[in-house]
């Protein structure tokens, strides 16, 4: 797992293996076409902390090992998951920009987007807004600290 969870974490149970390619392989291959040489070229589970979800072009530097990001509060975990899904969406989009007919990757893209939307909605309701359009509570909270560059937010 990319992120470490407390045992009592029952706030949400999003499991990235939902997006893994074992499941994707069960998609009807006659229905979807894929430009990538094989399904293992997509690493949705580790891609975020590697900075690259495409194993076929992943390029490590020396012996440096990208590490898991630890988070301890429920809010941090949820925000990290949003950041992770947002990253996956972006990396898939750059690929789809030049392979728009890869219907299999597009199918994955749609599932990630749906999950991201759901999670953002939950996060706004429980914590804070990340987008101006979502600031619909009883008072204006967009200005509230912390701003992303403030730090001291992750443990």
């Amino acid at each position, binding site marked *: 797992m990319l992120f470490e969870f407390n045992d009592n974490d029952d706030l949400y149970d999003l499991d990235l293996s939902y997006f893994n390619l074992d499941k994707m392989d069960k998609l009807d291959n006659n229905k979807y076409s894929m430009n990538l040489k094989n399904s293992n070229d997509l690493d949705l589970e580790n891609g*975020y*902390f590697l900075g690259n979800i495409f194993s076929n072009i992943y390029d490590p*530097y020396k012996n440096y090992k990208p590490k898991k990001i630890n988070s301890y509060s429920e809010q941090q975990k949820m925000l990290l998951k949003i950041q992770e899904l*947002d990253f996956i969406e972006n*990396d898939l989009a750059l690929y789809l920009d030049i392979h728009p007919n890869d219907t299999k990757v597009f199918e994955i893209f749609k599932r990630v987007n749906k999950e991201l939307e759901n999670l953002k909605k939950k996060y706004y309701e429980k914590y804070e807004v990340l*987008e101006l359009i979502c600031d619909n509570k009883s008072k204006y909270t967009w200005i509230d600290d912390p701003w992303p560059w403030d*730090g001291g937010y992750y443990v």
Partner: protein
Amino acid sequence: MFKYDKKLQYPIDIKNKDLKMAKYIITQFGGSNGELSASLRYFSQKFSMPTEEGKALLNDIATEELSHQEMVATMVNQLISGASVKELENAGLSGQYAEHGYGLFPNDVNGVPWNASYIANVGDPIANLMEDMAAEQKARVTYEHLIDLAKDEDVIQPLLFLRQREVVHFNRFKELYEKYTKEGYK
């Protein structure tokens, strides 16, 4: 148009002050191979891309680079947080302090301000994409130098992430370059 998302692309939380590292990393904020150069290069070039694929890719990478500019600035800001004037002076940042105080300014590691000549746009998709591929490689190498100089995991991890993004962008530009070459663009 652009809309702001109140989060970083990758979390940054540097707990230990390191003024020398701040002095080096600022180059990715305002140096020739930095994120501002990258973002404006692709943003300028997107208008003369000949196909949907090219317009989309240049637009989307330009946007991502701007979020990297924010990450780099966040790193520098946290690395100098709480530093005294004396400490800045000892780290060779007295000139920086005299002109900008604790404010961030896009300059390179030697204090040379950002300059539009760092980017190119000749209006030709093949020449521009070749420029973009070289730019991504130069940015990758710069991040490698910064990783070599860094000791703190809080600094190394986001640098590794940013370096890998250059690898991805290089490969996407290369794919588009090869596609255009096959399609007969010169």
